[in-house]
């Protein structure tokens, strides 16, 4: 999937992946896509909850080899 900015949140734990995501989204324009990589298993539900409450769109959420990759489109 294409993306405009990448955030490496690996090794970080709650609530840092969410706080860094919020910060990274502030640096891209509406409609652009942020790719986030995390290792915190709690981030899976948290990213979905963050998207739902902020109106940003979680395009995909996947796990591969202990890493979680998210694509979020800025509102």
């Amino acid at each position: 999937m294409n993306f405009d900015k990448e955030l490496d949140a690996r090794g970080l734990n709650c609530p840092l992946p969410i706080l860094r995501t919020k910060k990274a989204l502030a640096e891209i324009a509406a409609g652009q896509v942020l790719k986030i990589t995390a290792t915190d298993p709690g981030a899976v539900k948290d990213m979905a909850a963050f998207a739902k409450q902020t109106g940003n769109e979680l395009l995909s959420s996947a796990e591969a080899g202990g890493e979680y990759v998210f694509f979020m489109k800025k509102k």
Partner: protein
Amino acid sequence: MSKKLAIIATKGTLDWAYPPYILASTAAALGYEVEVFFTFYGLSLLKKDVSGLKVSPLGNPAMPMKMPFGPDWFQKINWNIPNAIMSIVPGFETLATSLMKQTIKNNGVASIAELRELCQEAEVRFVACQMTVELFGFDHSEFIDGVEYAGAAKFFEFAGEADINLFI
């Protein structure tokens, strides 16, 4: 209009420093307007230097005592030390605190100073209870900048309109 979260922070130990700052920073990231009212021991969380916050295993039977170093099997051991022994060993709290800090670091959990800074960046409002500041003989200069000093009525001004109120 954005949702509002009001928190009262009353505890001044390293472990209890986390919930108010984690919830405040996360709520701010979700678009909440957040105000934290610090009172009694919670005032310690506003000190310029929070590196002195300690965690006490005393009277806290749910606290796991695990070593944050060594081989995997060793780290999994829960050192079930009776309270009676903890209380007579000098420096036990300091030891437990340094082990806790190492565990926090190993797990990629943010420091209190870092979370607090993130709260301030996100415009979380900090209000310190003036009555307890005086009661404990603190001076405003001991606290970080950007703190408002007020009483219980100020808390209710915001809390009365808040969607979520938490006492921590």
